[in-house]
């Protein structure tokens, strides 16, 4: 077997890697934005709860959380390892994305919230029309970083048996006894994925930058 057929065999796991990322990242974003809003505008008790959630979730290794969430989910709903793993990664990422969004809200909020309230908007309206549009754009650079992390962390679902890139590499390394080639191929594919994702997000960032607001 030569290098290109290795790449080909392993690359067929790319669909799963992308799938896991495309489920985990957006679900983490939705939860993250929600939690960040609750954190900043939720009142004292809610704020405390969100802060606790963030501290605990970010204090535990992703692989440990992945196993806990995976087994908890499999006990309550019937999900395939792919879905259970992807959603678990999304929940894990939500804590990190929440901190990113919170940082951006704090950078925007304050005076702007006061100004919006002063012209007669409700808090929710101010969030919807004034704060969030700026916040989300401000959050793109750190968020791109998180996107790359989620692509890389998607390799963790290997341990749940999802046939993604690393699992395919492991299978072919066992059957051909060429582990070096197999894992180098996997590394090349991951690198390409992260590289392309970074370029796409950099383009998005340029297009959406708020002028004169670095």
């Amino acid at each position: 077997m030569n290098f290109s057929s290795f790449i080909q065999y392993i690359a067929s796991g790319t669909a799963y890697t992308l799938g896991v990322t495309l489920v985990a990242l957006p679900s983490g974003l939705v939860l993250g934005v929600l939690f960040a809003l609750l954190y900043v505008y939720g009142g004292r008790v809610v704020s405390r709860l969100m802060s606790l959630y963030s501290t605990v979730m970010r204090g535990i290794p992703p692989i440990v959380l992945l196993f806990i969430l995976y087994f908890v989910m499999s006990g309550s709903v019937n999900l395939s390892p792919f879905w259970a793993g992807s959603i678990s990664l999304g929940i894990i990422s939500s804590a990190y994305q929440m901190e990113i969004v919170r940082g951006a809200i704090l950078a925007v909020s304050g005076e702007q919230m006061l100004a919006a309230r002063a012209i007669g908007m409700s808090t929710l309206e101010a969030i919807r029309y004034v704060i969030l549009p700026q916040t989300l754009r401000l959050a793109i650079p750190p968020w791109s970083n998180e996107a790359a992390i989620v692509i890389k962390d998607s390799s963790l679902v290997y341990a749940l048996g999802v046939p993604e890139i690393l699992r395919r590499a492991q299978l072919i390394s066992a059957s051909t006894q060429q582990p070096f080639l197999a894992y180098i191929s996997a590394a090349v594919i991951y690198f390409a994925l992260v590289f392309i994702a970074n370029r796409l997000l950099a383009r998005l960032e340029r297009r959406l930058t708020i002028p004169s607001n670095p």
Partner: protein
Amino acid sequence: MKKSLVLLVVLTVLGGILAGCASQGKQSVLDKITKDGKVMVGTSADYPPYEYVDDAGNKTGFDIDLMTEIAKRMGVELVWVDMPFDSLVAAVQEGKIDMSISCFNYSAERDEQVDFSDAYYTSEDAFLVKSGFAGAIVNPEDVAKYKIGVQSGTVQDDWLTTTLVEAGLVEDANISRYERVDQAALDLNAGRIEVLMADYVPAQALVKQYPDFQVVYHAVLSTGPLNIVLPDGDAKLQAEINKVIKALQDEGFIDTLATKYFSE
């Protein structure tokens, strides 16, 4: 008001996710299987010739063929779920999969969590070494002198832990536990471990794959009859599976499979 409503929804969702480990309705899994027209079966496809992935990427092996036939006789579609071996029992217990076939032996600790079908085959344990191995294994306890590798969560792992570690014959640190048996084989080949303990039939398959390997000892230590792992207390499903296994034994189907996969 709105705020507390949002909070309530969030907490309910979170609570649902985090506390959901509780019980499910006590209905036979067999009814669910017939209703859905499909059976979800877990395996750890790293154990040739029982279960493995061939060059084309398809699952194959003794257990795989057997289960395919069982599903066919039950008239349902078979959906494979490939997961790490030591997650399989928990997955059956928690209803993630309907049952699991993965070269399982009966053990009392497992029996507390799940049920077993009747045996469909009987297996042995084996010790594998690489050529150039200077030691000698006359009694099974002799392996305590060497660096040992085993697949995590298997009956072999159990045997090593109870017979050697807990008896004080060997330090736990001397035993390397692997996620998959093919990773253990890579390490035996690389020389990181000296002895690999595995089921006899897969051990022979490894010898075919790695000409440097040889089986230096085999006997029934931890293994014995192989069974399918079923959800706990589901007599209806158990009866159905046992009926099919019995029929396949009587027809000689299982013997044919054994010849196909196990003979040289």
